[in-house]
């Protein structure tokens, strides 16, 4: 089992996703995805390490592992305002993954490691499209490594905290509206960085069957220092656009999540849960590029983002049919953090409604194959990125099947 998890990890460590309000990704456990992405009040498996470190100590088994991967099929269409022009996102499959391992040295204490991809954005509109002076393609991915410790008192209250180390890489291409003999000039920015944050949570089981959780994941300031900036410009302009180093600053926003879930029915076959996730998007007010070698043309640019903080509402339901099969459904609403005047094709964010379903099959005790499917519909949205006067209507959609394995013993 560990081997399989390890393989999965190696295979998909490089993958990431583009979806959700802004560039936050919510695909962290197939069981959670099946139930509308809830998780803050759940403690069924090692994924608690991420959703709420306070819940990890409630996991009964001494060892527990969970790993999986989603296949994100993103679709987006753009219709330019007043122009007879449409573009669609190039079809690429993004593969966000998760891996959790928890160990309980004592009945009340749990230690573990969570590795997953909570932020990312990868898309390609193509090199020739109408918005190429804003973005041609972008790949930004952050992978977090979170060693965690969790402790619970008397099966009633659990607290936990994890240290988060995030690694980020970015690769961005855009055209520059200056023409040489071969057409547009271009800019490529490529670089990586790492930084620390934390994840802390509390879980309470006040009465039998009821679980309440609160979790806070801190903001992580990703400063890509000295990324490589390569300009492809006409030779007469090379002195204005020297190949360069650039510092890029992109914040990964903090999250404050509340969750409640209740088990009921015969043998607690049923469970219903809700989550309220507040994302502190307001931290992302601009995307800053600070070039090391400055000229009269390139220097420090701050492209306004003006994101607004948003509350995501999630609900999920689980039914254990028998010892072999458990099924799940759920849904959520993820309002776009992007103001209408700042709709940027870099992150074509619309208000999104997600419908989910999933199941787990238990071939033998403690081991499960978990699958989930998320269908995410973005509302049609007209917007302008006013700093660059780029206007149109966007419509997005995602189909996200995923599969994972869990093993506890």
């Amino acid at each position: 089992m560990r081997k399989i998890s390890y393989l999965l990890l190696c295979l998909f460590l490089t993958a990431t996703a583009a979806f959700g309000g802004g560039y936050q990704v919510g695909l962290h456990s197939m069981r959670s995805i099946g139930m509308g992405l809830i998780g803050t009040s759940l403690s069924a498996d090692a994924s608690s390490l991420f959703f709420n470190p306070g819940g990890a100590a409630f996991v009964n088994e001494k060892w527990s592992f969970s790993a999986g991967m989603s296949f994100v099929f993103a679709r987006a269409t753009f219709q330019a305002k007043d122009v007879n022009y449409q573009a669609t996102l190039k079809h690429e499959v993004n593969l966000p993954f998760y891996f959790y391992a928890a160990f309980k040295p004592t009945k009340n204490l749990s230690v573990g490691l969570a590795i997953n991809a909570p932020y990312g954005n990868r898309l390609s509109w193509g090199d020739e499209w109408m918005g190429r002076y804003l973005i041609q393609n972008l790949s930004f991915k952050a992978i977090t490594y979170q060693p965690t410790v969790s402790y619970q008192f008397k099966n009633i209250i659990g607290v936990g905290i994890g240290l988060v180390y995030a690694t980020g890489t970015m690769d961005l291409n855009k055209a520059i509206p200056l023409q040489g003999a071969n057409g547009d000039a271009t800019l490529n920015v490529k670089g990586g960085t790492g930084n620390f944050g934390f994840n802390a949570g509390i879980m309470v089981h006040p009465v039998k069957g009821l679980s309440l959780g609160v979790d806070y994941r801190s903001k992580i300031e990703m400063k890509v220092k000295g990324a490589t900036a390569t300009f492809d410009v006409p030779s007469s302009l090379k002195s204005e656009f020297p190949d360069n180093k650039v510092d890029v600053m992109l914040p990964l926003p903090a999250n404050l999540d509340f969750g409640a879930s209740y088990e009921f029915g015969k043998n607690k076959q049923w469970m219903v849960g809700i989550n309220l996730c507040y994302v502190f998007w307001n931290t992302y007010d601009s995307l800053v590029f600070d070039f090391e070698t400055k000229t009269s043309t390139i220097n420090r640019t701050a492209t306004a983002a003006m994101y607004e903080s948003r509350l995501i509402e999630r609900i999920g339901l689980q039914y254990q049919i028998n010892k072999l099969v458990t099924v799940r459904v759920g849904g959520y609403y993820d309002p776009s953090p992007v103001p209408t005047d700042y709709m940027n094709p870099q992150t074509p964010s619309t208000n999104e409604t997600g419908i989910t379903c999933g199941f787990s099959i238990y071939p033998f005790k403690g081991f499960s194959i978990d699958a989930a499917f998320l269908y995410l519909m973005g509302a049609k949205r007209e917007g302008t990125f006013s700093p660059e006067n780029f206007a149109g209507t966007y419509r997005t959609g995602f189909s996200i099947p995923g599969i994972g394995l869990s093993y506890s013993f």
Partner: protein
Amino acid sequence: MKKIIFILLSVSLFVACERKIDEFSPSANGVNFTKFVAVGNSMVAGFADNALYLSGQQNSIPNLVAEQLKTVGAGPFVQPLIGTEEGVGVTAVTGGFYCYTKMALKIVPDKDCNGDPIGTSSIRPAIVNTTVDQNTLKQQLLAAPTVAGPYDNFGVPGVNVKYACVPGYGAYNPYFARFASSAATSSVIGEAAGRQPTFFMIWLGDMDALASATSGTDLLLTPVDTFAKYYPLATGALIASGNNPKGVAATIPDVTSLPFFNTISKQLPYNSVTLTAEQAAGLNFLYTQYGHGDIVWKEGQNPFVYSKPDGSWAQMQQGDLFLLTLPTDSIKCKGMGIANPVTYEPYPIPGQYVLDVAEQANIKTHIDQFNQIIKATAMAQNLAVADMNTYMKSFISGLVFDGIAVNTTFVTGGMFSTDGVHLNPRGCAITANYFIQAINAKYGCRIPEANITNYPGLVFP
């Protein structure tokens, strides 16, 4: 069984995932666009970079408008295309014409006052081919267009409102002679009316002011009463041509919006002459010797001296504009504006390179009055107005379209061609969209705009 249902459900959801948006739906709103005809001067002809050339014509403002009008029923828009990409520009000289190719940005070695290279170079507009002989250029200019007529673009570089109405104008302007159906007898307006447009665009009158302004004078301005007589005649002839057409008329831009007038003075202030007390005394003595004792030089900053069209000399004032044609080498090396260091003669800047404050004021007054006539005529004849005067002024501080920032700065501004008066393809696309907006606003139609990002700015070497 459940698994199968689940898989089926998944597959059906995949298929449903393609995200459709309704495409732009054009609407003519009852306006008949089937026969579109354009009339005007160089701005309409697709003239750019100081010459008429093939791709310039293909990117002409009316051609870009016509392309969009096809979505609301317009037929083909035939232009009198010239068979050369290097193009032909024309300057009238005594007894005929002097021709040259277009200009383009080139890397030119910088030279000192002796003409020796100093090791640096700069990007400047330069004639693309200096070796073609006059005969070849004249043949290219007067050769039949590469596509057969009749034509729909009656943009004739150099034509003003009166000349557009004059029969036989082709005898005076090779740009009309090259495609006129009967150059000896027809007029530009007459031929355009002969096409019996259902919709027309007229951008006429720039030359009535700009021909004078680009010569550094206000003496060649068309008298306002002449303009008032001929402009309504021109539009009236088109409206009476048979198909009861609708149309759009454009106003004349202000000279301050054009790089030709606002570039050099930003780099070379009018009072860039720095003198010591001795130098000032010497120049005062020299100018007195030549009968211009009224011009007083002093220690410190002094204005350049220029000659006015009437032959009088004056010191420049704040607000006087150098034209783009100013030979800056002569300023730097030959004492132009002060005194010739070799012959020790006063050397005023020839008036053709300076548009002084008084001339600017007179030109502005004329342009304002011309524009009032254009607007009044358009209103009386129920035409849409593309107010290019107002629109071009908005580019002085700069606008941005789809990530492309443009302004009226020469070369780096991104919308004008290398001659500083005419637009490059990107500028043409931006302007074509403004015409389309004017048509949509007046007639309540929904004509799509051009995708500006399809049209290049200046090409850098």
